[in-house]
């Protein structure tokens, strides 16, 4: 996967990518340790809130009502941002957004631009597009610096370098950052090296790009919640600020922010509040950027909105609680999902942003439907339900393409058998006989074909000689 291409283009099916990830014991240890730590912390800070379930309901209600009248709220946002001295741009897709941002920067003859950690810019491959125009994007979030300087891709929404340990980070910094000959792998030393590099950039580059956690239609305010303060440097020092947000990030009223200010930090970093909460509304003379642009990005979101059973996907506030709780993510890590958006949310969001047929079609199946993601989601996205809905779309699209699909044939045959109790009883007899060559010591230890995956590491229970219904009939007599 090219590090410069849009982050939602999935190049390999999940099972194959997961197989490689599962072989990497270092990766598995790093991710297991990190997710278990943050999971325990999140549980503790959520338990402090007696009204957590009410807050979830409130967050869900705000999102649902906003999405129902999204057009109205976006127009209101445009009006208030414009009134506050900003400029609003509407981008249908990533290519259009990248061109708009590139044009603004090129108009200023910018050679470098600071960047606040932003999933949306990763989704559209903004860094690659800017580099191609001779504008160098400079990531300022510590983890994003590690990813960018490692010529790597992020593996977690919130902790992009979760797959790296400090020894690996030291090697990357020594190779890429100035004055690092004597760098140790002590976290403090590593942070200092990044800080020296970033300070110099903050003080010399007058352009910055951010994403947005929320934008308030009523006031035209855009908000970023962060932990390190690098974002705040980018929001206040540069002369020109460009913010890019997915259209679903709008909320109607200033007051709506209160629910998310409580839900987001506890769900994501397991903090009671983010250390830095920055809100800006347009421009103000003598304070902050002189020029402010807001790019409203669709990039497939309207289609998600139109698909009612999947619509709640757009509730997502990118907190990453679902990644940290997910047993599949914990074993495979984020890059197995092949997208900016990994884990359970990625398994529903990414396939909706890729036209089928695509390797992304494997993502709705990359879940055991255990439901832990739904349980922790602060905005109550019923991810398992949406996974099943998307599976249905994949199956329907495949069915239309080829009538000779092995799984579809098996499923259809089984449905016919289950429709008819006589056939069902016959199938039991046939299977009980058919399995005989495979039984060793009362268990099935090896099977051919698509079932070989089961018996690779697990025995299979043989079909019983006497089914329950046969026992019942014999007993009834």
């Amino acid at each position, binding site marked *: 996967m090219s590090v410069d291409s849009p982050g939602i283009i999935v190049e390999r099916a999940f099972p194959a990518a997961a197989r490689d990830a599962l072989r990497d014991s270092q990766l598995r240890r790093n991710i297991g340790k990190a997710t278990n730590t943050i999971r325990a912390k999140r549980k503790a800070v959520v338990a402090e809130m007696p009204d957590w379930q009410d807050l979830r309901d409130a967050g869900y209600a705000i999102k649902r009502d906003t999405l129902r009248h999204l057009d109205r709220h976006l127009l209101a946002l445009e009006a208030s941002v414009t009134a506050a001295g900003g400029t609003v741009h509407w981008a249908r897709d990533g290519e259009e957004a990248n061109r708009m941002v590139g044009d603004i920067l090129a108009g200023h003859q910018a050679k470098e631009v600071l960047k606040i950690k932003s999933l949306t810019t990763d989704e559209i491959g903004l860094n690659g597009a800017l580099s191609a125009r001779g504008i160098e994007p400079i990531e300022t979030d510590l983890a994003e610096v590690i990813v960018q300087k490692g010529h790597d891709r992020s593996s977690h929404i919130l902790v992009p370098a979760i797959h790296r340990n400090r020894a690996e980070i030291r090697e990357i910094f020594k190779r890429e950052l100035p004055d690092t000959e004597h760098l140790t792998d002590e976290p403090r030393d590593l942070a200092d090296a990044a800080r020296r590099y970033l300070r110099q950039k903050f003080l010399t580059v007058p352009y910055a790009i951010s994403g947005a956690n929320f934008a308030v239609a009523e006031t035209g305010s855009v908000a970023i919640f962060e932990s390190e303060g690098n974002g705040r440097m980018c929001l206040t020092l540069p002369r020109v600020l460009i913010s890019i947000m997915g259209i679903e990030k709008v909320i109607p009223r200033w007051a709506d922010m209160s629910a998310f200010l409580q839900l987001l930090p506890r769900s994501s970093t397991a903090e009671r509040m983010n250390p830095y909460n920055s809100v800006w509304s347009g421009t103000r003379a003598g304070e902050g950027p002189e020029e402010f642009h807001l790019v409203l990005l669709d990039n497939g979101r309207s289609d998600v909105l139109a698909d009612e059973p999947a619509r709640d996907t757009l509730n997502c506030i990118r907190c990453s609680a679902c990644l940290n709780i997910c047993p599949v993510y914990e074993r*495979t890590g984020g890059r197995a999902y092949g997208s900016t958006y990994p884990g359970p949310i990625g398994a529903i969001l990414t396939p909706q942003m890729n036209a089928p047929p695509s390797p992304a079609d494997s993502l709705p199946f990359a879940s055991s439907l255990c439901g832990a993601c739904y349980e922790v989601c602060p905005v109550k996205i019923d991810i398992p339900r949406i996974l099943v809905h998307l599976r249905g779309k994949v199956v329907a699209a495949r069915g239309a393409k080829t009538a000779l699909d092995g799984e579809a044939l098996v499923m259809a045959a089984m449905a016919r058998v289950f429709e008819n109790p006589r056939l069902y009883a016959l199938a039991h007899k046939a299977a009980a006989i058919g399995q005989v060559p495979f039984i060793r010591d009362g268990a099935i230890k090896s099977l051919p074909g698509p079932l070989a995956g089961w018996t690779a590491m697990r*025995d299979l229970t043989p079909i019983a000689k006497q089914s329950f219904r046969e026992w019942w009939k014999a007993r009834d007599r």
Partner: protein
Amino acid sequence: MKVSLFISCFNDMLFPQTGRAVVSVLERLGHEVAFPLEQTCCGQMHNNSGYGPEATALMRRFADVFADAETIVCPSSSCVVTVRVAYPRLAAATGDQQLIARIADLGARTFEFAEFLVKKLGIEDVGAYYPHRVTYHSTCNSLRGLGLGDAATRLLSHVRGLDFVELPRADECCGFGGTFAIKNADTSIAMLTDKLAAIRGTQAEICTAVDNSCLMHIAGGLSRERSGRRTLHLAEILASVEGGVAA
């Protein structure tokens, strides 16, 4: 009470002993058990795999077969979740108001076995005797789909002779997930490996649960380990009395 047993296709063919245990416990408690022979499968596998139309047909069939049943009991939480949670969505998608109403009524009459005993009947002690060290895996569907809570462990706490030991991270998925175990076999096995280690750590002889599907997956791994540990459906523990299994 007259109880209609929905055995589930999976239990019918692979774990008939679980069905016999359910009958044994219910009859011991004085209930009359009916078994509609026309029953087959609830359609869970079709629904979860994205075969909605097939699942809808099986739902209609299930509703017909159990149309006259007063109370339906099933020793599989994932099948009960299919009836209670997935069916209303399938019915809603048809737009058929009569079907929607029938399905809502069906869900209200359908119970998982442990749920039926503890929440519907208010019974925690079924007079069982099982002198073994046992740990309990709370399957995802019973935990999150049904909200079974501690119903199963309450039942276990009243089994005489039973030495209960809590399973660390019991609420984490074992990696079964139906066709997930085959489509994503490598990931499924990675999840199972950690579950097996947790079970080993308890020193329990038996790992029990209310879903034979998850238990089959866990048992498949335990069997490869040759540890002597095995799995057993909760109903079979509850059916055990002094002198052996009553069923």
